[in-house]
């Protein structure tokens, strides 16, 4: 009975979706509703309002600033949720036959992999910074650059030493938490300065130089904060 109901439900949903797809306007035509509604205004005014050559970044940081602020907060919330879940759960149960103590097992890291990771790390970090800072001209942006940076940090945490015990818990915990919160904090601070200086939340300064500086600060904040959150998620899941 339940299977039958599920089948009917899926068939109904599928019929609606297929009907919608059939009625979609031809992709690429200029007179479809998507292009005549608001996008024309975005495309015309986006460059002046945004101060960014990449229109996507311009729209995200101007017309959709509050949405973007919410999205930046989501990833930080994810970290808090995972930290809460892993610290509330009991000792880890593994599916294998015996419960090995991971702190004491020492499988040496392959010297080849260790060498290649350490060789590539500076280049990856440079590229991540490039993606972050050039986000308002080229594809990419703070978050993508932050993900690349986070991937590099995870690789280093796993492969830089001789055993699995190596961790990059070098930063004091207080500072670490502030860095993890950097994305929402920087974005919120920017919104408030906009409110103070021009009376609008999330408005950018008029002077091109300051606008550029604000953009760079924002991308760096989102990127580094995002990378810290991703590394934090990785560590919480691995050890908690």
């Amino acid at each position, binding site marked *: 009975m339940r299977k039958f109901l599920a089948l009917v439900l899926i068939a109904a949903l599928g019929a609606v979706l297929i009907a919608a797809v059939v009625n979609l306007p031809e992709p690429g035509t200029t007179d479809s509703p998507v292009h005549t509604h608001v996008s024309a205004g975005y495309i015309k005014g986006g460059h002046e309002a945004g101060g960014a050559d*990449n229109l*996507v*970044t311009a729209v995200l940081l101007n017309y959709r600033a509050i949405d973007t602020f919410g999205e930046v907060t989501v990833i930080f919330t994810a970290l808090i949720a995972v930290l809460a879940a892993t610290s509330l759960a009991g000792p*880890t*149960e*593994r*599916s294998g036959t015996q419960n090995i103590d991971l702190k004491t097992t020492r499988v040496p890291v392959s010297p080849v992999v260790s060498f290649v990771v350490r060789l590539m790390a500076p280049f990856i970090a440079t590229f991540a910074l490039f*993606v972050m800072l050039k986000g308002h001209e080229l*594809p*990419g*942006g703070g*978050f*993508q650059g932050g*993900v*690349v940076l*986070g*991937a590099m940090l*995870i690789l280093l945490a796993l492969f830089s030493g001789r055993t699995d015990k190596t961790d990059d818990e070098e930063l004091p915990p207080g500072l670490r938490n502030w860095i993890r919160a950097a994305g929402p904090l920087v974005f919120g601070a920017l919104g408030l300065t906009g409110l103070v200086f021009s009376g609008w939340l999330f408005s950018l300064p008029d002077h091109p130089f300051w606008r550029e500086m604000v953009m760079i600060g924002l991308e760096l904040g989102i990127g580094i904060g995002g990378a810290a959150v*991703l590394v934090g*998620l*990785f560590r919480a*899941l*691995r050890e908690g």
Partner: protein
Amino acid sequence: MSVSDLFDLLILALLITCVLGIARVRDLATAVTLFAIYSFVLCLLWAHRGAPDVAMTEAAVGAGITAVLFFTAIAKIGRREK
């Protein structure tokens, strides 16, 4: 049919095969692997549709960091779907 349409068709066939595989397997690690392949292929579709920003996010988040975090979680909870 133009070569561009053929490209789209091949990509969509790849995506559908991946999704069917994900729905069918019981091993979580296999599902994550197939999901990584799905993200890789989807990224090609975004790029072809002229959205390099979305393509980059898909490549970075979908194929890279999500798979890493999923594997970390699977290492914690075990591979089998209960």
